[in-house]
């Protein structure tokens, strides 16, 4: 009988959850302190031509601080990129250009800009601030045998966004996004995204992402290998001087 009432109670709670409550649940889920991976990114244009990039990434604070060293293609080897997100000012982005022996700062005014020629913009890679968006819950759906919350996420008018809205499918079990559609400022579908996750050390972590810009017919496929979490990455790593050399581990 207890079990029955627990079930009724929890079902009532779930059904009564609003969009913002689901967003808060999503935001509050357990995330690693730091993360390391080797990312393979394949870009494919409308004519079927591809470019392959391989890079080593270290990040802390849920990707708010991230440093990337480029391994492939050969032309990009040695180039490195540092990003530090700030709450109340423009993000810092620096790039190490080994051929020039210079670090150059890159403008971060336009969050809609593409990252590395991919279909992921800086806005896509940044964490969404809950207060900057309105979350409307729409009917739940089952995607790939996973029961999902479906949210309509609308950036508030004061927010500088390149999107008018997103439709986001969140797996109820892992509270990870498994699918998203993003619409441009005119309301037309711009990007279709698909995510897959695996469990690592008690966390759900993303192990691949597929993004298609339906307007440009351009695709980006990223897979994350050598995933490690909570390895104790020092915040000191995220400094300009560390761009110049690849970490040993």
């Amino acid at each position, binding site marked *: 009988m207890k079990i029955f009432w627990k079930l009724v109670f929890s079902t009532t709670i779930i059904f009564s959850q609003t969009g913002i409550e689901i967003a808060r649940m999503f935001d509050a889920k357990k995330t690693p302190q730091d993360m390391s991976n080797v990312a393979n990114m394949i*870009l494919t*244009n409308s*004519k079927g*031509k591809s*470019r392959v990039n391989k890079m080593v990434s270290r990040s802390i604070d849920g990707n708010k601080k991230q440093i990337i060293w*480029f391994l492939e293609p050969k*032309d*990009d080897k040695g*180039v490195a*990129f540092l990003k530090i997100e700030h709450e109340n000012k423009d993000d810092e*982005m620096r*790039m190490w*250009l*080994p*051929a*020039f022996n*210079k670090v*150059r*700062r*890159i*403008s971060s*005014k*336009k969050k809609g*800009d*593409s*990252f*590395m*020629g*991919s279909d992921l913009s800086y806005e896509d890679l940044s964490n969404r601030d809950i207060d900057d968006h309105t979350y409307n819950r729409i009917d739940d759906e089952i995607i790939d045998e996973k029961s999902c919350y479906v949210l309509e996420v609308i950036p508030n008018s004061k927010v500088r966004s390149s999107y008018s809205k997103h439709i986001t499918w969140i797996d109820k079990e892992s509270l990870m996004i498994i699918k998203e559609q993003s619409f441009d400022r*005119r309301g037309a579908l711009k990007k279709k995204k698909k995510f897959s996750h695996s469990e690592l050390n008690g966390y759900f972590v993303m192990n691949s992402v597929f993004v298609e810009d339906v307007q*440009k017919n*351009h695709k980006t496929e990223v897979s994350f290998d050598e995933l490690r979490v909570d390895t104790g990455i020092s915040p000191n790593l995220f400094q300009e001087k560390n761009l110049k050399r690849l970490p040993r581990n």
Partner: protein
Amino acid sequence: MSEIKSKYSKHPLRKWFITQSLDFPLRTILISLIATIFLGSGIRFFIIDDDMMKILPKNLDSRISWDVIQEEFGSTEVIFIAFGKQGESIFNPDAFAALWDVEEQLEASNKVEEITSISTATRMDNLDGFMEIDDLQPYRDMRADEVNDVKLYLEKNPTIKKRFVSEDNEYFMITVQPYSSEGLNYFRDEVVSIVDPILSNYEIYYGGQAYVTGTMPAMIRDDVIILARIGIFIMAMVLLLNLRSLPGVAMVIMVIALSLFAMVGSMGWIYHLTGSERFLFTLANTSMPIILLTIANSDGVHVISKFFKELRLKKDKRLAIASTMDSLLIPIFLTSITTIAAFATLTLSPLEPLFGYGVVIGIGIAWAWFLSSLLLPSVINLKHWNHKSSAITKPSIFEKIINRFGKVVLTHPKYVFSAGAFFVLIGLTGLSKVIVDVNMTNFFRPGTEIRDTMDFMDNNMTGTVDIRVRIEGDIKDPKTLSSMRTLQDSMEKDPKVITSFSIANVVEQMHRTVMDDDPQFETVPVERDKVNNLFTMYSMSGDPDDFSSLVDYEYKVGLITAFSKVMTTQEIFAYVNKMTNQVKAVMDPALNIDFTGMIVILRDLVIMVVRSSALSIIFSLIIIGIIASIFFKRILWGILAVIPLSSAVIINFGFMGYFGIELSHITALLSSVIIGVGVDFAIHYISQYRRLSKTIGTNKLSRSVVDDVGYPIILDAGSNMGFGALLFSAFVPIQYIGGLMVFAMVSTSIGTLTVLAALAELLKSRLVKRDESL
């Protein structure tokens, strides 16, 4: 009835034809109409499309390169839009807002692939050590100081400025690229319908190949309708004046209209069944309806005028029809065959639309022969004719003129021949003066809207004739990039080439920006690693599509684009030769270089126009000579048949040289038309000469022939003044064709009645003796 039947014809085939008209007129009319309606029903598949690229054969090097570039970098046929106000600077917030609105609206169209203008361009700045890539116009409503900042940036980067702003800072330029090079008329209409209302407070100018190509179908359609109306009106008037019979004129017009319908329908059917671009109706085809009009008219005129003459003599309609058709079936068939043969030589032309022209007009001519041989006599048979009408009882003004004319020719054959030869000599001296020019700007008269807008683009903006150099190799290699810049410098040395751009310019700009905006570093870096770093850095904040018109995705193919003002043919040849040599001199031989663009296309078109004209003249004269020799069973007749034609062609091209009328892909078909239409006169003359030589003595033979065929020939030529309708065309080369054809009709008809008559008179002893022996 049996008495009449026995008089139809001795020849079984001619007898069959005459029987169909005399004994089964209703059945013949019905079958003819059903067949015509079926053929004409292809009109629903008929398409007007005047894309200059479709004129060139698909296996031509420059066309192949062009197609490859279209595939790799998108359509290079674009619309240029310039807007502004004369005497006012365009650098003001209102103009920027208007530019933004135009870009937004065009962007929303599914026919637009890409827009290039200030509102879509990016700027690269070095701000306090920041490498910043931002929109040149980030939003619609710019403040005056922001507008001024854009102006300063463009002045610092003149290569970029040339693409977007006029030299006097009074006009903005927008380049609109279509999704596809197909259906450019719809693309053009959509662009104009979007832009015109937004920029109603500004002067607007359109240009570019896509605009011209997109504008042409409507212009061609309107032109053809107007010309056909004027042509039919002129012919009807000439016929009415001479036949003096409304039903007679109506019958000729009926043959013309049905032939025209069948021809246009057949073009639609062939395009529908083959899908071949050769059967699209282009500017070159604009003259086709008028030409068929005159040919169909010629068949009808001969039948009606001969029928009136026979009716006057025989006083019996059926006997008159039988006699008319017995004497005309062979000449009409022969003139149709020779005219078809002359036009068939167009199928040898390397210019694609002329192939379709040759085939389709051949079908039209064959249909006109079919209708004139069966439908027309059947209709004549059904009509009750008043034997006492002046049209039948009295000779017309033309007949009277011919009587006097015949005397002059035949009493002074040597003088007449010498006068003809003198004209030919004058023509010969003018041949070397003929200019070949295929530039479409010259197809429109100054003062017309389309010409003025094209001239504006040429004079105030970058020019609209594109030059493209496709470079296949390692585009990130500094040597490749540097040689691209060297080549661009050479290209821009010509004063008519206003600007050029390539990925090498972007690399220079990025290099300068990274090196703290120091102008000294606006160069291609020497080290490859630096070039790599620049591209990687750009990719961190630039749009991946920013370089899509300059380099392919894998950096294996680069494109240099330059724009030039309109060049003359001589300038085009000199420029292309110079640049071809320059490519060999400055570019690494390991690179695969293709030089193309509209300028090379125009060069190739010129070569093909010359080749097409030469092929057409040589082959049509040979074929007609052979056909005439076979039909008249003597080589001498074959030679005599082509002499007036050769003379007319020489005089025609000589006059083109003297009067500065350019030979283009439109006027290239003149020789075929002159030969194809002009040969009819010679055929009629020779047929009648041979026919009468059997019954009339040599002393009176030529006179009798001129009496007999002179009138229909002059009437035919007179009614062929319908070619004059082409003078009312909106297109300059079509007007030239009209003028020259009027002149050619006069020269070939008079040439037949003078040069051919005089030669026949001079050679009569050989001609008659030999014919008698056959």
